[in-house]
């Protein structure tokens, strides 16, 4: 007790001095900025971080938004690091184990990301591995039947048990229809098997991993080394892809529609309310006030043992069996602002009315300016953190590079959020109430409310 009190008294004045310090990252901290180059026609973004380990990711514009048929992005993701023409999946795994590295693959609505992490000395091996996976994957029929199909089934089961995920997925469908609205993973009732075959997938992969469709993003390796090895190994990739029906399909610019969908679910309950949001940083639809409003409404505390300052966590404090989270999903040409409530059906139903009340409060300007300042600080932290964190940062930078936007500039993001005014946040909340919402109810529909009951137009 004595100890903690003395530490507290010593560090407290320091917390107050924060404002005097220089703002986070700038020219004095070059390790956080990506250096953009080009090797053998492949775009490379790299940041040299002094340290013994490196991360190298291949970002391909082949997420569910660009897939020609349902399930293709998911299958392409699962087929990464499987057998190639040169070596089997087992050999790849064992070799990487011996080198002490790691590899993984994931996909989002816009991208398929293959990530490798390794000791910096092994850069040539892992660059070659990524190039091999991109250009020489075998796509054996038995791998689809014995491995990929089973993994896909397990993933489907996992998302079926997650009503919040189903709700957010359905909200994207309502908001953007085709393209951005396509499921990231086809759910159990999607007849994706009739489209999926190894021949079709291998055609899709040729286009997905063509030079114009990918970017290499590194964090750690020496830039000149990286472009040397990438130039050597990625030379064999096709410059432009195939032209058949299985190529990467751009289904046009995203347009916001809105609407309402109700899905029955036996065990869990969720209500997701979506509004048009902000597109990614560096694109024309970027609106920093969306991030501020997202942290102002909030719902999840960032600090232990306290509900936090956010309006929704304050409003739903008395509901013990409820989870609320507000997110701003940003994409290259559009965005979706979602508020997701999940938990006990009765509490979800009551709390979803509180959500609309909270938005009305913001629109009427009944929120103290201090709260908005806190929200802006949190929004700034979150967006900077997501750039700095490897997983999100790599994909965001790669995506920006492929789509021709500018790579993330940390100073500018911070500046943009600092410039958000109270009036902008208020206007945004007003536009939510007057415009069309995307409302999804998943679970016990007998208890869950309709959009009309909440006072939202759909």
């Amino acid at each position, binding site marked *: 007790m004595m100890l903690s009190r003395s530490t507290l008294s010593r560090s407290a004045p320091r917390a107050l001095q924060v404002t005097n310090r220089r703002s986070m990252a700038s020219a004095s901290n070059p390790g956080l900025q990506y250096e953009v180059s080009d090797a053998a026609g492949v775009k490379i973004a790299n940041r040299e971080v002094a340290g013994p380990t490196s991360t190298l990711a291949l970002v391909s514009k082949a997420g569910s938004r660009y897939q020609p048929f349902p399930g293709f992005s998911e299958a392409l993701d699962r087929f990464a690091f499987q057998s190639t023409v040169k070596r*089997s999946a*087992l*050999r790849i795994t*064992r070799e990487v184990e*011996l080198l002490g590295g790691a590899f993984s693959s994931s996909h989002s609505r816009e991208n398929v990301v293959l990530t490798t992490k390794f000791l910096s000395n092994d850069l040539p091996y892992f660059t070659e591995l990524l190039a091999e996976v991109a250009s020489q994957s075998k796509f054996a*029929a*038995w791998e689809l*039947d*014995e491995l990929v199909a089973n993994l896909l089934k397990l993933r489907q089961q996992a998302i079926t048990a997650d009503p919040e995920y189903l709700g957010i997925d359905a909200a994207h469908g309502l908001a953007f229809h085709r393209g951005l609205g396509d499921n990231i993973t086809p759910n159990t009732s999607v007849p994706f098997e009739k489209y999926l075959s190894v021949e079709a997938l291998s055609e899709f992969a040729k286009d997905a991993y063509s030079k114009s469709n990918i970017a290499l993003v590194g964090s750690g390796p020496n830039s000149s080394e990286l472009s040397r090895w990438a130039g050597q190994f990625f030379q064999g990739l096709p410059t432009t892809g195939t032209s058949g029906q299985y190529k990467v399909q751009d289904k046009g610019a995203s347009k916001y529609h809105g609407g309402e969908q109700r899905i029955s679910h036996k065990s869990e309950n969720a209500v997701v309310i979506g509004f048009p949001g902000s597109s990614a940083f560096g694109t024309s639809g970027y609106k920093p006030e969306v991030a501020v409003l997202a942290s102002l409404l909030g719902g999840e505390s960032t600090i232990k043992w306290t509900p936090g300052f956010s309006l929704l966590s304050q409003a739903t404090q008395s509901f013990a069996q409820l989870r609320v989270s507000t997110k701003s999903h940003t994409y290259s040409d559009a965005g979706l602002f979602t508020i997701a409530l999940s938990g006990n059906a009765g509490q979800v139903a009551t709390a979803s009315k509180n959500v609309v009340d909270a938005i009305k409060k913001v629109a009427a300007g009944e929120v103290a300016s201090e709260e908005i300042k806190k929200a802006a600080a949190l929004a700034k932290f979150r967006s900077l953190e997501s750039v700095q964190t490897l997983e999100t940062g790599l994909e965001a930078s790669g995506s920006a590079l492929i789509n021709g936007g500018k790579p993330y500039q940390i100073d500018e993001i911070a500046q943009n959020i600092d410039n958000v005014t109270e009036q902008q946040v208020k206007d945004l909340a007003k536009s939510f109430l007057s415009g069309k919402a995307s409302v999804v109810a998943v679970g016990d529909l007998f208890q869950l409310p309709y959009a009309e009951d909440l006072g939202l137009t759909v």
Partner: protein
Amino acid sequence: MSAPSLTSYIVKRPWLKRWMTPIAEWYMDAAGYRRLGLRFDDIIPEENDVVQAAIKRLSAKESYDRVFRIRRAFQCSISHTLLPPEEQTKPSEDVEYLSPIIREIEKERKEREDLDTLSVRR
């Protein structure tokens, strides 16, 4: 599953192959499975993991045809009859459809075995 075989030894020597081919063809025909409408790959013993895995990897059509041939042969065997000559397997139809998959699976297993027992020297 594969039995010891002299095939690769013979195939490598053209003069020996020329010499052996008619004998092999006569022998395969004399074995009699073609008169029951079977192919050589149908009579590979299937009671082991490797062949079971290979059978699972056949395409739907090949798998159906295999079952059909085996059932037809079984029926012939029960009734002590041979198929009419036009339904018997012609030498040109007696092609490998399962063996390549079996060899692939054996290669995979061998690779796993090798990697499991490998010792690393740095």
